[in-house]
């Protein structure tokens, strides 16, 4: 089974613990969202997967075997901090990274050209990278990460600094890679993009895994739900306040609207009974049981909730 597994991986820098204990599995072909606040240990984890840093303890395996130089040749990496050779031309730069990952001539240039076309960089192909806009430079760097058709691509904040149009180009390219069976690991703070793109998620904080799984699995294991009720009138509010298992929700995301009453309740609570009591108390124009969003799960898991 082609997959990436991390077993009890840890890494410190002197007295500072970056990764305390992380175990996770990324199935082959998955699009895996690695989430966590700044300093959670995401970048260190990615660097350990790529062999840039060695773990202090624990094991990392690709296809069941420790990751060696040959395996790393089949990986692609887009680091959070972007960098290119400013004087090297776009096509040559992409081809160079292709060669570093084992592409031979002329396949390096052919593959570079394919990605230049895919990312809409044709007009800049002969220009030195230093002359490109920041967005186009990011697209070039993305091409450098994927030019060799890697089995696994790790992308650290792939959308940061991109305008919506360029973000869509990258999103489209990522979907294409996913469709082709490439395993993707993404780290980003832009939840709507990662929720749309990824099929599996892992939320880490303080160097440990807080929760992981598909969005449905994360929701299934989530202990509470939210209901939103309209209109926001005293009669309906009184009913909701009298129910001991309900608590006013701090979240106003997803379908939340300012004029609605929002309450959290246990996942297994009888929503029909609540609705019946509300209808008996007054006119209800909207009653909605809302599943937690990824943003909500992330915020509450990492203690970042408002």
């Amino acid at each position, binding site marked *: 089974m082609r997959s990436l597994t991390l077993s009890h991986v840890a890494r410190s820098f002197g007295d500072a613990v970056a990764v305390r204990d992380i175990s996770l599995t990324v199935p082959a072909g998955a699009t895996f969202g690695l989430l966590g606040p700044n300093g959670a240990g995401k970048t260190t984890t990615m660097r350990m997967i*790529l*062999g840039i840093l060695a773990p202090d303890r624990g094991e990392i395996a690709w296809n069941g075997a420790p990751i060696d130089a040959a395996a790393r040749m089949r990986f692609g990496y887009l680091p959070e901090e972007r*960098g290119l050779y400013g004087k*090297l031309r776009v096509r040559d730069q992409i081809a160079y990274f292709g060669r*570093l990952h084992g592409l031979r001539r002329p396949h390096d240039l052919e593959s570079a050209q394919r990605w230049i076309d895919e990312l809409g960089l044709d007009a800049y192909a002969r220009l030195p990278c230093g002359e490109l806009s920041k967005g186009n430079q990011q697209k070039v760097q993305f091409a450098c990460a994927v030019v060799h058709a890697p089995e696994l691509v790790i992308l650290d904040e792939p959308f940061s600094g991109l305008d919506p149009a360029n973000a869509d180009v990258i999103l489209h390219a990522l979907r294409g890679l996913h469709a082709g069976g490439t395993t993707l690991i993404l780290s980003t703070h832009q939840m709507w993009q990662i929720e749309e793109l990824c099929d599996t998620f892992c939320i880490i904080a303080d160097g440990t895994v807080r929760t992981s799984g598909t969005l449905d699995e994360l929701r299934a294991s989530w202990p509470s739900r939210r209901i939103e009720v309209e209109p926001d009138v005293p009669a309906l509010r009184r009913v909701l306040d009298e129910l001991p298992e309900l608590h006013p929700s701090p979240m106003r995301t997803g379908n939340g609207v300012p004029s609605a009453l929002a309450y959290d309740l246990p996942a297994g609570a009888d929503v029909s009974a609540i609705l019946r009591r509300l209808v008996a108390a007054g006119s209800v124009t909207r009653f909605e049981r809302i599943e937690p969003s990824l943003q909500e799960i992330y915020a509450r898991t990492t203690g970042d909730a408002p």
Partner: protein
Amino acid sequence: MNRIGIIFAAEFLRRIRSRPFLIGTVLGTASIMLTAVLPLVLSGVPNGTTRVVLVGDRTLTAAVKALIADDYTTVDRLPHIDGRPTVEFLKAHHDAADVVILTRARDGLRAKVYARDPSSFGYAFGRDVGPLQVALATGLLVGDIKHHVIVPVSVRDAAGRFANVSSAKAAKGVAFLFIILLYVAILINAQVIMSSVAEEKTSRIAELLVATVDPAQLLTAKVLASGVTGLIQLLVWVLFGALSSKIVVALAPHADAITHPSTASAISISPGEIAAFFAFFVIGYAQYSVLYAAAASLITRTEDLGAVAGPVLIPVLTGFIVAEFAVAYPENPWIVACSQVPLLAPFVMFSRIATSDVPAWQIASSLTINLAAAVAFALLAGRVYRVGLLLYGRLPNLRQVVTALRS
């Protein structure tokens, strides 16, 4: 092609096509050709001598004028002057450099000099007027004394290496020139590595590279690429220098080494010295380039480059300065010791080889010690480089680097 080869090819092409390399090669070649040709050009120009004003009685100043004619041009003779001569006084008297006031004392001649530049007056004056001093004391004729005060001295090289004093002096001149070449070549190429590493670090491309390539491979490829371009540049310089010397010899076929030092230069550099020159370039470059690369890997901002370049510049400068002394004192025990010390030896040992007969065991031990040091520096620098590439933020101090190396 393996990854070292791929990076080597890319770095080599980048360097060889770069403007600094092309400009450096052309300007360096022009400078060396000029250095080779200049002595021939200057030999056709009459020597300028120091212009002096002589003050004293007519007989005395006339006798002195005749005696100093080879070294000084007497622009004026005055019986006396009022007070102390000033710079304005010198300018007013044919822009003279010095005023020499001559007086007779009970035991002979006295000269008091007022010079614009006291350091440049030298000992030639006293030597030139020596016969007059003897004549005044003995009553003999100056002309007779002059013939007897110079003892013909014939100097031969005990090792049979140099034909005469001039060729030995010329060898020192050549050694001096080659030490400058060595210094420039090592410094330039080590700094090329430094700026290349700094570019990758500050542009954040380093992380992308080390995700694909082992840092040791990356460093090896960079050092090799810059080393090869440095060797090419040196070869061009040396070839054109040799060609220029040949041309000079052809243009002045009857010139001997005394009148044309450049012709002596053309014949006094042996293939062994050329081999030593390239060998010590390779060793010196290997030692310095890895240290420069390690230093550059620690910076995050280009502005910090100066802070890390300073400490690694000190040994290069020290080596260069000691090598200059080694030209004059190649057998001094301290110089001999320095010719074995890593970082200094590439300059100092070459300097000794070019100017004296260094025992073979000393050359062999220097090569062994310095090759071993180059390997040790590469291993140490490789570790710093590996850690440094991922260190971002403020420039780390030594303790932080050691902590990072341990972790």
